[in-house]
């Protein structure tokens, strides 16, 4: 099936994640079923506080070919900003776009969209822990996405998108629309999130986090009968999106096509996951319809499944509802079992997992899936990756407040 010239394709990927900082290293980790989860001390004010969590070991500095920062500049930026700027710059580099060069669109025709859920809270927290008082006062800083655009010399439209754990997926959805409408000729899009003492404490107090502090690598166990919550992670993942015709014109590599997007809202509860699968199923069905595909054509589903008792079961029901009998033949896995839950960056990371499955021809596993929950009846991929051709993959993301999103990615033929 040939890709339409107006299709939106992914031509560059940059990442800083607990499973690696490049498409290749992430694909290797997923194929190996490697866990990025460890023990993390989020203690403050001299009080240790350990959680199972997935940490980025090293955040890559931007390549000098994209942005030339003064010595020490990158390291002085907040961790959240590093998790945006590093991957964003590497996505530009990976796409082979020399900003300002003849092959690249003019800076005003390049957009930036970042999925970031609680940027201000994390900025205020960092400042406060460093002894600052921004949270008490009127300082009105530019947002991270505005600073990102300025640093990279991008002058087109930009926005921050927040839909909790589906933030970067909604960012991808908006970017695709900007390209389809002709509002931009290229769009840098992704998401980032950082481990923060406040967020960890809030989710812990909400009883949403796994309490397996003693066995962190076994803590993230989506679809398993003994799951007890999610494992928070951090990371940044950015893509360069272009229309297929533009990518072809400059001979760019296409990782895949963002072929369909489906969105819906549960309108159920501000905090608790919705146990009714109707709206999540509607998002999945809408994504397939948007891509012009039927359920039978899907080769792999990357589930949102974070390891919460209610959420995983509801998603399994949503997949079965949306796909009908075809669900009995479609493998489903949750890569959060390995990466942890990257929150705002989760959707973007899981899009990378889908592209890796397409590129390498394997189904990423759900590790720690020792006893599949009967309430989560799906075609699971437990423990180890399976070799298999993947042409089309779907990726679910569901956020607080009932923001449902499904992306369909397919090989750019």
């Amino acid at each position, binding site marked *: 099936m040939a890709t339409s010239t107006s299709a939106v394709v992914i031509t560059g990927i940059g990442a800083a994640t607990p499973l690696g900082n490049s498409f290749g290293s992430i694909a290797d980790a997923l194929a190996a079923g490697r866990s990025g989860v460890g023990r993390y001390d*989020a203690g403050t*004010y001299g009080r240790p506080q350990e959680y199972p969590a997935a940490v980025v070991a090293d955040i890559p500095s931007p390549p000098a070919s994209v942005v030339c920062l003064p010595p020490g500049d990158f390291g002085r930026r907040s961790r959240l900003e590093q998790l945006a700027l590093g991957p964003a710059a590497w996505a530009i580099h990976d796409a082979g776009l020399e900003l300002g060069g003849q092959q690249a669109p003019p800076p005003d025709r390049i957009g930036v969209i970042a999925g970031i859920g609680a940027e201000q809270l994390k900025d205020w927290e960092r400042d406060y822990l460093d002894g600052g008082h921004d*949270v008490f006062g009127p300082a009105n800083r530019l947002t991270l996405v505005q600073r990102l655009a300025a640093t990279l010399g991008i002058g087109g439209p930009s926005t921050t998108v927040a839909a909790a754990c589906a933030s970067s997926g909604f960012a991808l959805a*908006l970017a695709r629309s900007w390209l389809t409408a002709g509002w*931009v000729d290229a769009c840098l899009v992704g998401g980032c999130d950082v481990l923060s003492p406040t967020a960890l404490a809030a989710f812990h107090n909400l009883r949403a986090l796994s309490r397996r502090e003693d066995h962190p690598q076994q803590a993230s166990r989506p679809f398993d009968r003994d799951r007890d919550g999610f494992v928070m992670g951090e990371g940044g993942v950015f893509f360069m999106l272009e229309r297929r015709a533009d990518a072809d014109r400059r001979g760019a590599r296409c990782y895949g096509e963002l072929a369909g997007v489906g969105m819906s*809202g549960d309108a*159920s509860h*501000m905090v608790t996951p919705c146990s009714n699968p109707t709206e999540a199923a509607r998002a999945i069905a809408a994504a397939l319809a*948007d891509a012009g595909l039927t359920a039978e054509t899907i080769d792999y589903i990357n589930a949102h499944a974070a390891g919460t008792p209610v959420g995983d079961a509801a998603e399994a029901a949503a997949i079965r509802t949306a796909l009908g009998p075809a669900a009995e033949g479609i493998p489903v896995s949750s890569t959060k079992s390995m990466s942890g839950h990257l929150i705002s960056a989760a959707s973007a990371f899981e899009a990378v997992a889908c592209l890796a499955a397409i590129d390498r021809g394997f189904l990423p596993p759900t590790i720690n899936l020792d006893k599949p929950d009967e309430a989560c009846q799906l075609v699971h991929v437990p423990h180890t990756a399976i070799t298999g051709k993947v042409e089309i993959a779907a990726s679910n993301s569901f956020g607080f407040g009932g923001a449902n999103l499904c992306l369909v990615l397919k090989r750019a033929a």
Partner: protein
Amino acid sequence: MPMTTGMPHDIQDTVTPGTCLIRGGQVITVRRSEVAELARQPVPAGGPSLPPRFLRHADEQTVVGMRAVLQTLAEAGGDAHDLTFDAVVAASCRAGQPTAARTMVALQQQGPVGVTPHVVPQCSLHSPASAVSVGLGMHGPTIGVGGGPAALAEGLLSAATLAMSLAVTQPAAAIWLIVTGWDGPPALDDKATPTNDSTCRGLALCLKPLAAGTPLPEAAILRIDSCKSPNSLEEFTGDRPLWEFCERLTQGRATHIGCGRGLAASLIPGEMGFGFGTPATTREAA
């Protein structure tokens, strides 16, 4: 928030992608000290109801934004459409700051146990949009955007973006654009106790996506225009307060807001302005 008066660039008489009819809207302003009382007040007569105590954990901007939506619906009365598949875009600036301040103090004084579990779900960028969706039973896409000084422009652009898909998938549905912020930012002491009584402002616009290629209606619209002349772009840059934008809408004045250097969101009034109850200049006069 850059603004100028006059007609937009690239005048066209057919609907371009992302164009929306502005069905109506409301502006709500309330002092910080009065927000808690507003959250407890009965909903405006003639509009939909909210679940009991629904806003008890909500931040100030969520309360004010929700009230603007409820007031818009109450004004529409029997003309209100079915909300089932409506989408929500909420553009806020510094939402949740007082709660964040209290949380920082609690973390320092009590440790992690003192952190409220509501700080992320109820006081983040997505929260005003989620609250409207959950409270009023809207099942369309729900996102928060902005967070900083360009929140208004980001909200208009994002609403127009969602309009493109909604016009195809749910042509009867509307998009609720909610823009919230502080007229003067809240000031807090080092115990997170407020030391001023800032005004919190919320704007709700009910936007009906229009199908691309159809004739442009003689009514108030939002649309996205490209800015072809680089020399004219300066007029779209700047940073203006939300109250000034609300005033322009109330007066029915055409307004353009730069969205980066390449695009502008144009709000063009109809014969009755923007539906805020104030007769306004016609499209020709604007």
